[in-house]
């Protein structure tokens, strides 16, 4: 990732004054999407193989296709936690309990992958934060 950023910087420098910061090409968009899909695909692997827990239970056992995770409703008040929570906190609850594992940091690449997969499976749904 660091290397591709560096390459981008060099490319921008080469274009000099002709490069405009507020424009990006179809190729850029394709690249962004491909990056997302790669991470989401990694998320599906983690979702189905049980490696984020310790007892072999996989997220997909209760949530096939990440169903019933409703990422479009977060952040929301989670009455059992007694506070407005983010999706990663609920993912961690599942990792600790049914999966008998340890919390992942919010910016752990595995958490990013899991949340990317969950969100990918709900693409097209209306954003409804706060709703249960």
């Amino acid at each position, binding site marked *: 990732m660091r290397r591709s950023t560096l390459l981008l910087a060099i490319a921008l420098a080469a274009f000099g004054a002709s490069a405009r910061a507020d424009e990006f090409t179809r190729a850029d968009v394709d690249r962004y999407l491909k990056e997302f899909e790669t991470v989401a695909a990694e998320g599906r692997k983690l979702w189905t193989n049980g490696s984020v827990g310790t007892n072999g*239970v996989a997220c*997909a056992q209760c*949530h096939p296709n990440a169903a019933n995770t409703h990422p479009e409703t977060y952040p929301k008040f989670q009455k059992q936690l007694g506070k407005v929570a983010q999706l990663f906190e609920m993912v961690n609850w599942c990792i600790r*309990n*049914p999966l008998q594992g340890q919390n992942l940091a919010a910016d752990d690449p595995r958490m990013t992958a899991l949340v990317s997969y969950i969100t990918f499976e709900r693409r097209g749904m209306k954003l409804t934060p706060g709703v249960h």
Partner: protein
Amino acid sequence: MSELITRRSVLAGASAGAAITTLPISMVTLAFGGTREDFTFTYISDAHIQQIRGAAFVRNWDQGLKRAVAEANLVKPESDFVMFGGDLAQLGKREELDHGAEMLSKLKGKLYCVMGEHDYYLDLGDYWSKLYGPHYYSFDHKGVHFVVLNSILTSEHWTFHRWPTAEQRMLEMAGLDNPNGSPFMVGDKQRKWLANDLAKVDKATPLVVFSHSPLQKIYKGWNFWTDDAEDVQALLAPYDNVTVLYGHVHQIQYNQIGSISFNSVMSTAWPWPYPQTYSQAESHLPVLTIPMNRADPFFERDATGWQLIDIGSGRVAARYQLWDNEPRTVAYDRKAGRPVDVAYQEPTQRRLPQTHY
């Protein structure tokens, strides 16, 4: 219905005595209004006993089955027998089947078992058979003809030629949403057997058919589906009173197709979302079914529930006890000719479950 309430209060008394609020089992009563002897059986399903390593098993799934067995032994009136609806194991291993069988061995009374895909695809049901006998069979009990089918078979190519190892075959089938899986079927051989088996049964005899997967087509993507369902239904259709009880789906479903009533039972392990909550694909939950409320993940037994099922003259009334929600009763309505949710079926009386996102 009054009989059902009486039975329920007896059962509630038994439960209260044991200080237990919900039972992750089904209790089935066959009531014949004096013309025949009433009897009951209990129904436990989808335990998914999962080995971690050695003698360590997933605690949550173990507890579900242990609790079901303990509760089944407390049910009054005492059951004539117990049905187990399939998926005793998670990955079909001997260790899992043995561990599950040990828990089931604590049950009082005779045990009958249905084959689930999680019991089957490692060794094609070989070890399961050593424990529980044939993969499909029938028996008569006090005037009712019971049929147990193995509905989780699939094509010969997928089963025998597609995967390099038995372990991989099992793993591929174990994932509900795995596109490498294959649709379930009963198959030609077993349907011929069923036709022969039914040939000697009077059309007025109540039929109760047990399968693991639903003998109807709900959502192929998660194998809530049996590919030759219509062919099996055609064999059952000539009988006056047919009930199909199935596991696999880990949720409340019910339906009526011709003379055949369908009722699902819940899992002792975990609940599944309804197929329509997966918005990327079309599914067909029976229009009759009012979904139950979403499970609360913070209660590990929530939506694993239990059911008290009465079959009056061969028809079913299923009472679902849910942890944190109103109880639900799905009973056969003679006027309507189908199972209905007794409280919520009429649009004007409907108290909808939570919105399912």
